[in-house]
């Protein structure tokens, strides 16, 4: 029935009848082909991982299953019967329940109402039975092993709690097919573990689970089958025991990942950034280090250790209590970002959507944003110069875009990050501070961003990188500084640094317990 699957269908005889089959679904949005061949087969009692880079078409496939988008062509079978969904309600009625990547809560309504919206338990006169609604919400939370007040409003819930409410909502449908689009991104390890227990429980009750995640190890730990997509197309499907992580990565990106962390050997030049005894009361204390031309220094540590705060203080967004910051021997005034920019410091923030980009402005306007002073004539910004500048950087950064005039929000996460990079590089900085350079970026673009950074450093840029991804720190940095509770607890050279020693310094714990 599905020609793609035949080559890996040797285990076919032990499979029960699939509960859901999507065959060759396509979906276009205007000129953009979001999905060219969406195919997946879900079996009851099985957790199925759907893997692929950002933009591979996973979310579009999910939305077709959810009834949010109708496929342009292709076929969807439930229990072998072809079905067509005219909306989310129809999909839900067919027993499909979806947890979306972005929480879809009503901030002004209570948690219980969020779970049962449109299906609130009723009492006489078709009135909503709040007591019973809250009780049922509590039952769901008990199944998840979490505590959440069903009667509080959703506004102000932490991201993890929002996700829990979403999961409770999905559970409340008693769905036969549960689709989870990156459910673990915001959860702590304990919560993820609990979620996996719930998935196991659902499987034993015969439900099919479709699990979409960027974390390959999660897919391997909790799923029985895996389907890989690339560029909007089905690539392969296999039982998890028949494949390795390397196999999967190769199918995802269509190339080898040896080039994930390119590193050109450079000889560090003169000191660009010199930080001495930097202190911000109650946040970090006695921070001293240097960054030289042609080297990447990574700040590692747990979230909350003060890494981003150090960067903000260097750039002047936050005031320092004491200590000094020098750029090429020149002391920076306290709390003056403009002075830092003039001195040649660029800061690519962690949250590019909120702090790095003006999402509704066009691509070229965003690139030019930090260089407007150079583009002016008689106080007016010259559009042509703006575009020229943007085109130069788009070419250098291999930006993938439809039109320069499009809003930057139309770009994928990785390309958005390139725009932020381009915006700052256009100022020809001598020091680049980059906070989480590849967070939320797919594997392929990640490698591109790494290659870019490597190239810039080879040309003599000094980079201070903050990263929570240890492979990135180990792969990119010439030196690693580890922060713990606002203090530098260790410094490693590239040769000395390894996962264990960084973890030990970051946590101050026994490394065995840390793993």
């Amino acid at each position, binding site marked *: 029935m599905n020609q793609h699957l035949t080559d890996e269908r040797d285990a076919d005889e032990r499979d029960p009848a699939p509960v859901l089959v999507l065959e060759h679904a396509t979906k276009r949005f205007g000129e953009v082909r979001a999905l060219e061949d969406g195919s997946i087969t879900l079996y009851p009692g099985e957790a199925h991982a759907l893997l692929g880079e950002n933009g591979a078409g996973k979310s579009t496939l999910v939305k077709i299953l*959810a009834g*949010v988008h109708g496929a342009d062509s292709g076929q969807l079978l439930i229990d072998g019967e072809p079905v067509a969904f005219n*909306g*989310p*309600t129809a999909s*839900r009625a067919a027993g499909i329940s979806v947890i*979306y990547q972005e929480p*879809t*809560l*009503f*901030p*002004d*309504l209570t948690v219980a*109402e969020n779970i049962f*919206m*449109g299906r*609130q338990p*009723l009492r006489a006169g*078709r*009135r*909503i039975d709040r007591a019973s609604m809250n009780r049922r919400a509590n039952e769901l939370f008990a199944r998840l092993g979490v*505590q959440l*007040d069903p009667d*509080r*409003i959703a*506004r*102000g*819930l*932490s*991201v*993890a*709690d929002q996700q829990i409410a979403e999961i409770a909502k999905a559970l409340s449908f008693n769905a036969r097919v549960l689709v989870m689009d990156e459910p673990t991104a*915001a*959860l*702590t*390890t*304990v919560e993820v573990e609990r979620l996996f227990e719930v998935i196991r429980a659902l499987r034993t009750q015969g439900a099919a689970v479709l699990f979409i995640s960027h*974390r390959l*190890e999660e897919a391997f730990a909790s799923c029985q089958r895996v389907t890989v997509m690339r560029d909007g197309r089905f690539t392969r499907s296999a039982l998890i025991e028949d494949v390795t992580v390397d196999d999967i990565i190769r199918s995802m990106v269509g190339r080898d990942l040896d080039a994930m962390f390119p590193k050109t050997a450079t000889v560090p030049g003169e000191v660009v950034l010199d930080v001495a005894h930097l202190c911000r009361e109650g946040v970090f204390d006695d921070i001293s280090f240097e960054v030289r031309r042609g080297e990447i220094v990574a700040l590692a*540590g*747990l*979230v*909350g250790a003060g890494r981003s705060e150090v960067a903000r203080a260097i750039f002047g967004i936050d005031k320092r209590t004491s200590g000094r910051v020098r750029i090429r021997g020149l002391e920076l005034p306290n709390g003056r970002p403009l002075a830092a920019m003039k001195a040649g410091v660029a800061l690519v923030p962690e949250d590019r959507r909120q702090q790095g980009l003006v999402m509704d402005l066009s691509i070229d306007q965003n690139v030019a944003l930090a260089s407007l002073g150079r583009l002016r004539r008689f106080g007016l910004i010259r559009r042509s110069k703006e575009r020229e500048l943007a085109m130069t950087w788009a070419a250098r950064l291999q930006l993938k875009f439809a039109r320069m005039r499009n809003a930057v929000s139309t770009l994928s996460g990785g390309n958005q990050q390139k725009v932020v990079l381009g915006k700052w590089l256009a100022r020809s900085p001598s020091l680049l501070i980059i906070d989480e350079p590849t967070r939320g970026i797919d594997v392929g673009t990640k490698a591109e961003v790494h290659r870019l950074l490597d190239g810039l450093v080879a040309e003599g840029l000094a980079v201070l990188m903050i990263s*929570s*991804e*240890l*492979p990135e720190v180990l792969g990119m940095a010439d030196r690693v500084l580890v922060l713990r509770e606002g203090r530098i607890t260790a410094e490693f050279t590239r040769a000395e640094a390894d996962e264990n020693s960084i*973890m030990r310094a*970051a*946590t101050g*714990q026994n490394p065995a317990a*840390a*793993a």
Partner: protein
Amino acid sequence: MSTAVITPTPTARPRRLESLLRARELGIALAIIVVFGLTTLNNHAFAHASSIQQLLTGAALIALLGVGETMVIVTRNVDLSVGSVVGLSAYIVGDLFKHHHQMPVVAGFAVAIGLGAAIGAINGLVTTVARVPSLVVTLAMLYIVRGIDGVIVNGTTIDPGSIPQAFITFGYRSLLGIPWLAIIVAVVVAAAGYAMRSFRWGRDLYAIGSNPDAAALAGIPSGRRVFTAFLVSGALAGLAGALFLAIHAQVDVTGGIGYELSVIAAVVVGGVAIFGGSGTVLGAALGALLLNTINQALVATKISSFWNEAIAGALLLAAIAFDRWLSLRVARNLRSAEGAHRDL
């Protein structure tokens, strides 16, 4: 790639905020009592029964319009046409009575409600089917209806003599000392408030305003619900027009001018979020009562009534500042909680 090392303890949940939000109606009620008390100290006549009746009657129309406006605003829309609907409905009902003196009072109300509902239906259709922002649709409707009103009125006035006595007495009759008007409005407020809290379609209205995308995903028929909200708002504006005629016993082309802004002021002061999702009709009605109490208090204490609008404006700013402060606080809590949840 990421391995969690430390599992943070869950942060304390900000329950107090929620109770603050819920106490909004209580706060307005308190403000009414304070204004009333202070004014009575200054001028003892303010506490007389007739004066209190005047307070209720004066707030009744705005409170009634506030019910429909709340339903609309809660869905992240707005109805600016209510003032001109009041004027048109009042004049048409008056004109009908003038030419058909034997027409029953009930028929007058029915015509008023039907007329308002028809205009509300057009507002709702254009907003939901053509997907034009309701601000524009109802602003256009405000002018259209006002224009039609001007043509029909053509400089004339409906005077008390042409309206049946039974209809006029409706404006000032009272039951056990409570004006009929206030009773009607109280019943409408109670019914609408209960419905919006206890029926699925009522919760749908809040859901649509709170997160339109999520409402679509939850399978809520947003178009139908928003249409209904405009229909109710229009019908109530029509009813308010008939009551306007009953109170004033006369109407000309200026009837109901500026009501739309008074209504929105009352609704926002009453704690209905201007961007939808939260607020109650009870709050809106209390907001109308508070604004009218302040208005009458200024008269009673012989302070220039020009202060009235300035005070209404200041209250509006205070209400919005309070909401803003609340949401900023929530955002701050959210950020710290989020930080605690992330892994290395």
